[in-house]
């Protein structure tokens, strides 16, 4: 969609592709990361009755800009014992993994990077790159804590991908599509058409589905939280045990890339949860553009709604971070294998039976 627009504008496939690919990064992820880091620190501060950053700009608004400038100026340290090639590739791979997911996320009805039919499948597949990158970073650092963090991260992401995929499968079965654009389009108009309220069709099954959908939402939210290595599932970083896990040895811009990837990932999973259960880019109360008859206002509203939903779930992630203590490794595995996966399976069965009826 956006690619065709740039293709008509530039007339060159490669240039149009580059522009379309770098648009979400420059317009969305970087500003989002800047705001999210500040939001995280502010939320953390206020939840602990502190103030958070206060000194750069009004109430510390420019703090993250200052941090980024500092990171840009920093020396890029590569220790002698590091495996240099892997060490250099790892942050790029991690960032690519989380950034590529944005290609299939529909921001508005007018903007989606690639409107592919296997959207959600592609996202789950491509975020698998993050595991490889993290393992690479941990191994190449030649540091026992980094390696431990990377191993834990790999174990965690692999085991938490299963409940995520099971819930995604539930929804795919229910809606009959893996295209995120169609998935969002189905939940149009008002909030009672969202999948969490049983989808757009008004039938007895809709009301039977609501508890299953709520359970599905909880399961996917918890497991995606674990997939992006956020507290209470942050044992790969576990600063009190492992310094800071797999990115201990990184400095400067490479560290910034890990950081950016983490925040991009946070938004990506929140966006997926929003697209699957909460109507994607759709506004809960209809559109102002429709009632006023202004065509171009609708995508703007949609973008606003989508960002709001995404940022809300990111906020909930931060909220959880400052509420819950870190899980132990065995507790982490118990939560995934003994609780989330059976629940997701049973949920899948129930939704299947209900949709059959």
């Amino acid at each position, binding site marked *: 969609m956006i690619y065709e627009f740039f293709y008509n504008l530039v007339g060159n496939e490669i240039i149009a592709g580059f522009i379309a690919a770098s648009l979400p990064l420059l317009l969305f992820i970087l500003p989002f990361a800047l705001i999210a880091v500040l939001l995280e620190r502010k939320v953390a501060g206020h939840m602990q009755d502190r*103030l958070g950053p*206060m000194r750069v700009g009004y109430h510390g608004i420019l703090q993250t800009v200052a941090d980024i400038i500092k990171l840009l100026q920093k020396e890029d340290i590569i220790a002698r014992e590091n495996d240099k090639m892997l060490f250099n590739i790892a942050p790029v791979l991690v960032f690519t993994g989380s950034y590529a997911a944005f290609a299939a996320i529909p921001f508005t009805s007018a903007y989606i990077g690639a409107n592919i039919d296997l959207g959600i499948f592609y996202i789950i597949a491509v975020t698998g790159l993050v595991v490889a990158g993290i393992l690479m970073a941990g191994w190449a650092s030649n540091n026992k804590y980094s390696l431990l963090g990377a191993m834990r991260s790999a174990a965690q992401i692999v085991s938490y991908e299963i409940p995520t995929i099971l819930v995604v499968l539930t929804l795919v079965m229910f809606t009959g599509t893996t295209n995120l654009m169609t998935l969002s389009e189905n939940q149009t108009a008002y909030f009672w058409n969202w999948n969490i309220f049983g989808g757009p069709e008004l039938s007895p099954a809709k009301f039977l589905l609501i508890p299953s959908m709520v359970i599905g939402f909880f399961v996917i939210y918890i497991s995606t939280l674990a997939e992006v290595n956020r507290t209470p599932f942050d044992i790969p970083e576990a600063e009190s045990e492992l310094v800071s896990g797999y990115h201990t040895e990184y400095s400067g811009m490479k560290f910034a890339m890990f950081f950016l990837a983490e925040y991009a990932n946070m938004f990506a999973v929140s966006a997926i949860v929003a697209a699957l259960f909460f109507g994607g880019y759709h506004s809960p109360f209809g559109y102002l553009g429709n009632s006023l008859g202004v065509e171009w206002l609708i995508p703007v509203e949609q973008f606003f709604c989508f960002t709001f939903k995404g940022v809300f779930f990111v906020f909930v992630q931060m909220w959880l971070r400052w*509420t819950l203590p870190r899980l132990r490794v065995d507790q982490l595995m118990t939560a995934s294998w003994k609780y989330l996966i059976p629940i997701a399976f049973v949920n899948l069965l129930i939704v299947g039976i209900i949709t059959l009826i």
Partner: protein
Amino acid sequence: MKEYFNNIYTALYTIFVGMKITFRHLFIPAVTIQYPDVKLKLPERERNRLYVNMDDCIGCDQCSRACPVSCIEIETVKSIPGEDLGKTSNGKKKVLWVTKFNIDFAKCCYCQLCVFPCPTECIYMTDVYEFSEYERENLIYDFVTLTPEEREQKKLNYEKFMAEKAAADAAAKQAPKEEPKKES
């Protein structure tokens, strides 16, 4: 089986309880004090940097002697007749020029023992506590209000006076000594 569902219920329930608490704290006003901009009021009898009001100092050296770490150095010069040094605020007559009154705050232990013996209450604790320095020498505070030239002047004046007095004394001594010789 019952335990299994109980575990799930407890986990979700306790998470929501915790989230409720943290959400409430989000709106509780922060307890942070923005230190350099906002300062807490210090207690009434706080002990910080000393200050010497040289208008009241009579150079009695009692504070220096009371100091357990000898961080106060005082040198005084007697005034010569005819010089009026004025009076302290509680009516004591000043008779000494204070030519040196150094307090080394690197040594000072803020015990306040120098404050009590002062007869004119001219040395006291202030509420200034931010006076860190890069060089230790900068922590030696000079409280004397006289300029260095004036201090030299006072010393010279006194020496001159003493010399004159000694000369006068010697002259006075010699005169009576010679007289008895003449008598004898």
